[in-house]
């Protein structure tokens, strides 16, 4: 668990982070999001002590990070940055084995680990091991950056806009493959981004910051349905409700056939990943208020009121 306790940081009396408190449960993916200059990167860097807070403390599993020797602390925390920061004078293999080497692992173990890591991030070990970093594409370099951060199997991962410098298509691929990795490894992750779609896609919990202050800290679905204030609302855009609907599965909302429903309702066969947003657009397309939806296992009805209620906006249960 990572716990921020009243963390404040000032640079020349300009506050960068102001009295922020929240905690990230172990094995959860927390996305720290906000406009640039909101203090999110500063916040992230307090965890591995690249930034020392003026006030407050950061605790990892109830131990103040200030009490852990700094190099020991950092070896237990994987760190991925936007500019990747691969060491240009080392091959891919050397880059990935930096931390295991610092930890004085045996040669065989390191070499095996490098292969494992390259497999994990989806790069063929034989082909990539000996490559120089200058021969890598942006997406490949970022994968190596992730591999390096994970090499010593640290329980915590800090990622500072890791996919920010990659083109949209590759970013999508990287996000998907990273989510897959996370499902397998279950690290405690603190991930900084200013891309709201990325946050919604990746996060278990989202922390929204503005001007150094924590505005809201909750799950993506909750934030979408109950934004704390106008800033959060505007940050997620006018299609906020659609975004929430697109994250909800239609099959979870299927209802019994309502009484006195019209006879000739359309029947639509859907997959298990079919979202409420998709369902809504079907209703619009067919120009009906409700329809019957059939999945492999179940069948049921969805109507406008049901979807509206699921959207959460303005409804208090």
């Amino acid at each position, binding site marked *: 668990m990572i716990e921020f306790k009243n963390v404040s940081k000032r640079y020349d009396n300009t506050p960068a982070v102001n009295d922020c408190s929240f905690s990230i449960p172990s094995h959860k993916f927390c996305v720290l999001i906000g406009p640039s200059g909101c203090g999110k990167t500063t916040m992230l860097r307090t965890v591995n002590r690249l930034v020392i807070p003026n006030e407050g403390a950061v605790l990892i599993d109830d131990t103040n990070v200030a009490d852990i020797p700094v*190099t020991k602390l950092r070896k237990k925390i994987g760190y991925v*940055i936007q500019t990747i920061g*691969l*060491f240009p004078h080392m091959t891919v293999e050397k880059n990935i084995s930096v931390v295991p080497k610092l930890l004085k692992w045996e040669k065989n173990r390191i070499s095996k680990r490098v292969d494992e890591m390259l497999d994990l991030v989806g790069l063929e070990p034989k082909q990539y091991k000996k490559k120089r970093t200058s021969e890598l594409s942006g997406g490949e370099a970022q994968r190596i950056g992730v591999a*390096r951060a994970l090499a010593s199997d640290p329980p915590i991962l800090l990622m500072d806009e890791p996919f920010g410098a990659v083109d949209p298509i590759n970013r999508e691929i990287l996000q998907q493959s990273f989510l897959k990795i996370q499902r397998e490894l279950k690290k405690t992750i603190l991930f900084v981004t200013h891309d709201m779609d990325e946050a919604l896609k990746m996060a278990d919990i989202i922390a929204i910051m503005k001007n150094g202050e924590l505005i809201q800290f909750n799950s993506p679905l909750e934030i979408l349905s109950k934004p704390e204030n106008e800033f959060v609302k505007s940050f997620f855009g006018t299609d906020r409700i659609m975004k929430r609907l697109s994250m909800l599965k239609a099959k979870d909302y299927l209802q019994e056939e309502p009484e006195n429903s019209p006879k000739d309702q359309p029947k639509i066969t859907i997959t298990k990943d079919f979202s409420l947003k998709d369902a809504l657009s079907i209703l619009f397309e067919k120009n009906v208020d409700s329809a019957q939806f059939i999945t492999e296992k179940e069948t049921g009805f969805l109507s406008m009121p049901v979807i509206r209620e699921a959207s959460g906006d303005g409804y208090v249960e």
Partner: protein
Amino acid sequence: MSRKKKITFVYFFILLIVFLIIIFYQAGWVNTLKFLFPEKEQLIYPRASISTLVWEHLKLVAFSSVLSTLTGVLIAILVTRKFGKSFLPLADNLSAIGQTFPPVAVLALSVPLLGFGFEPTVFALFIYGILPILRNTINGFQSIAKDIHDAAEGVGMTPLQKLFKVELPLAFPYIMAGIRISVIINIGTATVGATIGAGGLGAPITAGLISNNFAYLLQGALPAALMAFLFDAFFNLLED
């Protein structure tokens, strides 16, 4: 081996052969000089053979360059650390001013301190040779991007590990360029050492200038020039 590398290699090899011929082929010198200066009686510099002079010269350059390299790199490391940061502008300025300072002046100033001979010359060359190395090494360290520092610290390297595993390897090409400039300047400047009795290839040059004997002058200047070219080609080889 790439084509470029082959060419640098061949170039180095040719220079080496020419250099060795010039050092050891005494008869060649006699015949050539006789042909060039038929009216002169004294053609060959009498006090020492060219190979001895070259050896003396090499010693001057080697001692001073090794000292310059160690000192230059060390100072550069110190002024780029956190604790030495306040000395960085000073070191920067000194190395810039030093380049405008004529080497003869350094030699002249070192005589009252160390007297005549080998040591004061080595000392003067050493001081003068620090500057390009210091400057280049500082540049090398400063060329390392902030994210590389971040990454090195982020993976948990101690300051010393960072220095040896990241900073020095990345600054290495810069350091080598500095050493190259330093050595080549030193080969030329070392000839001036003869004026305070350090021997080396400056000796026949000085003698030639005093007695207006162009043959002597050639015996110092030609090997010295070739030696500079040879080292330049050698560093070229190291570079790739």
